[in-house]
């Protein structure tokens, strides 16, 4: 079936819905989601959205931008960071106007709290910058935006899985999609397409990401010649619940929670004397792993799954219940402990992709170091790389990224589609997608994908995880290649067409394998340590050689690497200490 729209948004999290909200004001807009919009993973974001409102203490957008740049280990494009933090303020007010119930100060103003890496006056000390709705900030944003999109009569196509993007003569013409309910293939012809498909934490074994976070947008783009930027920078959140990876928000440390090793020592005093437990995530995650490797984890066996304690027992029942209710609930539910009585066992968990589809500050997809764009193709949110997170994202800047750049992309689309040529049907646009799906469903004898998924996730976790080195990553690249060739033999076991979850999982696995390969190759070649990319064999940051963004092109079974300059027009790169 062929559908015609001005604008097609793929993905219904914060970025997709905000873009849809703006685009739908002036164009016929469809949102495609493999889920239902309110199930999107934006809803899981707990802690907050940062903006220099200055409601509880002095703050400025410039300080916020500086923190973002420094937090990103100077791989952030600095003008983009200024846009992010200046527009943050209006973005929060807009959400508030649309009915988002933020927590309030006693005077009735939007309350703000501390989060890792956010400082006053260029690093002097922590600042209260994160606006929040208890620890359900993402959930509230998602609900609010969904309501607004409905008001604007956006057409929602729920449970539609993207499999290909149609690009012809340097412009985007639409996407090819499978309807999960029926197994039917659809072509959505459009003047503008925006990918907002979120992250791909599912390439790792232990992750805070939902099952749906399989990087469908980046993978689809990569197969069509679009590079992926800075894929080697993947953030591990320091505090996942031991064994599960489910996140314990940084807000626990923001409210005063302390990390302790087996001796009860507050070990962050040694790693980050100024910001302590609220140092940026990459530093805290590495500090935890360093403790574990030194036998200072709680078990003390130096194994990679040993853990440390997050101690919130001194915060008191009132703070935990009022400000962190979900966290307390998580601990009771998943661990059978109460954080008032006992410390929470935590270890780092794969959390957020700094890299993704390269875009400019309007969300337009950029395909090379010269900044060439593809007309009508946009990306925003976690699947995109503007880049405002550089080598490491600060907490609460992800929700902000969705809102600010989702909105900017939507506004640009609304302008662009006014004069763009009507979408033209492309002959055989679904040929590639059909061949792929038909092979998976042809009923031939072949294994299901479960074993491949598991091997991929373990390989990526162990060899392309928090600490990396050449030997391990070379093995990882070979293993991923081997898994990709095994993928060619897999078959869907359930050949029914309706709600074929087996088919969906195999499509997702294909995407994850491609992204694993690009991530591993990009990481193998970056011979320095910067932000979340930490090389044991190259422990120092090397600005002379590596102050540049990676652009990785997936060409069949090969990954070709190119690089582009970083915008450092405001702040000179300096050593990153806290």
């Amino acid at each position: 079936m062929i559908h015609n729209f001005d604008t097609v948004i793929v993905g219904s999290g914060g970025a997709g819905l905000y873009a849809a909200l703006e685009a739908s004001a002036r164009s016929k807009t469809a949102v495609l989601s493999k889920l239902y919009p309110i199930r999107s993973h934006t809803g899981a974001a707990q802690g907050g959205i940062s903006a220099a409102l200055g409601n509880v203490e002095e703050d400025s957008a410039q300080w916020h931008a500086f923190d973002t740049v420094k937090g990103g280990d100077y791989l952030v494009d600095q003008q983009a960071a200024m846009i992010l933090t200046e527009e943050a303020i209006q973005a929060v007010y807009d959400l508030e106007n649309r009915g988002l119930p933020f927590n309030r100060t006693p005077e009735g103003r939007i309350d703000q709290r501390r989060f890792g890496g956010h400082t006053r006056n260029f690093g002097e000390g922590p600042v209260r910058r994160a606006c929040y709705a208890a620890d359900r900030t993402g959930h509230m944003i998602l609900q609010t935006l969904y309501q607004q999109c409905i008001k604007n009569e956006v057409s929602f196509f729920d449970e539609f899985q993207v499999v290909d993007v149609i690009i012809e003569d340097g412009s985007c013409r639409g996407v090819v999609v499978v309807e999960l309910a029926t197994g039917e293939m659809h072509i959505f012809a459009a003047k503008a397409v925006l990918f907002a498909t979120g992250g791909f934490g599912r390439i790792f074994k232990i992750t805070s990401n939902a099952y749906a976070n399989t990087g469908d947008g980046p993978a689809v783009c990569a197969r069509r010649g679009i590079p992926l930027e800075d894929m080697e920078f993947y953030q591990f959140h320091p505090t996942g619940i031991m064994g599960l990876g489910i996140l314990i928000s940084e807000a626990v440390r923001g409210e005063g929670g302390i990390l302790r090793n087996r001796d009860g020592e507050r070990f962050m005093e040694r790693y980050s004397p100024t910001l302590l437990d609220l140092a940026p995530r990459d530093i805290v995650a590495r500090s935890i792993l360093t403790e574990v490797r030194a036998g200072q984890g709680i078990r003390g066996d130096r194994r990679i799954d040993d853990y440390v304690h997050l101690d919130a027992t001194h915060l008191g029942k009132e703070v935990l219940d009022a400000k962190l209710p979900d966290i307390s609930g998580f601990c009771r539910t998943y661990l059978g402990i109460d954080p008032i009585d006992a410390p929470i066992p935590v270890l780092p968990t794969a959390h957020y992709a700094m890299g993704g589809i390269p875009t400019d500050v309007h969300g337009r997809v950029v395909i090379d170091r010269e900044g060439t764009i593809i007309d009508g193709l946009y990306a925003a949110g976690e699947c995109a790389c503007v880049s405002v997170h550089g080598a490491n994202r600060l907490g609460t800047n992800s929700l902000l990224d969705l809102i600010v750049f989702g909105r900017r992309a939507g506004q640009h689309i609304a302008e662009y589609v006014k004069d763009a040529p009507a979408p033209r049907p492309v002959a055989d646009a679904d040929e590639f997608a059909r061949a792929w799906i038909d092979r998976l469903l042809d009923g031939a004898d072949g294994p299901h994908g479960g074993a491949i998924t598991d091997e991929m996730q373990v390989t990526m976790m162990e060899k392309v995880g928090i600490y990396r080195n050449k030997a391990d990553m070379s093995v990882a690249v070979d293993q991923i290649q081997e898994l990709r060739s095994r993928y060619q033999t897999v078959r869907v076991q359930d050949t029914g067409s309706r709600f074929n979850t087996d088919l969906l999982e195999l499509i997702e696995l294909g995407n994850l394998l491609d992204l694993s390969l690009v991530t591993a190759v990009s990481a193998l070649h970056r011979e320095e340590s910067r932000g979340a990319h930490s090389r044991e064999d190259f422990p120092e940051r090397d600005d002379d050689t590596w102050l540049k963004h990676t652009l990785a092109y997936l060409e069949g079974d090969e990954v070709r690497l190119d690089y582009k300059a970083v915008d450092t027009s405001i702040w000179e790169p300096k050593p990153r200490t806290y």
Partner: protein
Amino acid sequence: MKTIDLTLKIWRQKNNDALGGFETYLLRDISTDMSFLEMLDVLNEQLTAEGKIPVAFDHDCREGICGSCGAMVNGIAHGPVKLNNLCQLHMRAFNSGDTLVIEPFRSRAFPIRKDLMVDRSALDRIIQAGGYVSVNTGGGVDGNAIPISSETAELAMDSAACVGCGACVASCPNDAAMLFTGAKITQLGLLPQGQPERKERARAMVTQMDKEGFGFCSNERECQAQCPKGISIRSIARMNRDFFRGSLFGE
């Protein structure tokens, strides 16, 4: 590690047009540290290995936020533990030798799509009928200048905690979606931003609720008892008040 053996009776149904029925499966050595969905994963691995079709069930975040999962376990929505989504239910809630009857969330308004998966888009259509703020309270800084007391914000937030799982509908003897609808109306109705459309919103959403085939409240309070987010039936009272005002006096 403690393990238990279980008998599962699971509703299997190919699609909404097909006839469904219970199938019985035996599971051995299930760790009590597993979540309920992990237990279903184990079953599905077993079925796949035997060349059988795995049980289809909705799930995504597995941390109680996305609202995707849900099933009746021995007749109780999301199982026997209170304030839990199904993904948060752990096998320590059961004993070895237990038989678990697992069924989809049933309602006239929730067609079955496959096995334990149901179509809950009726809930989305209720929001579409008016669950939003469309009048802007003003430009920029104004928003922050409308002071809202911490208590009001808190109450609005409690209602906004709804994840749209549908447990309230499935546990109601009348198939009512009033807790869901009431929560949405309460959240917006408590905030100054939601005032201009308050009465019309209630009227439109309640009308849509009826149209979808949901039933009416007879004060059984099952919804409140089984809501994973602990939403109170006071939100139904708020909805009724706004609805009657809306229908009697109009805008």
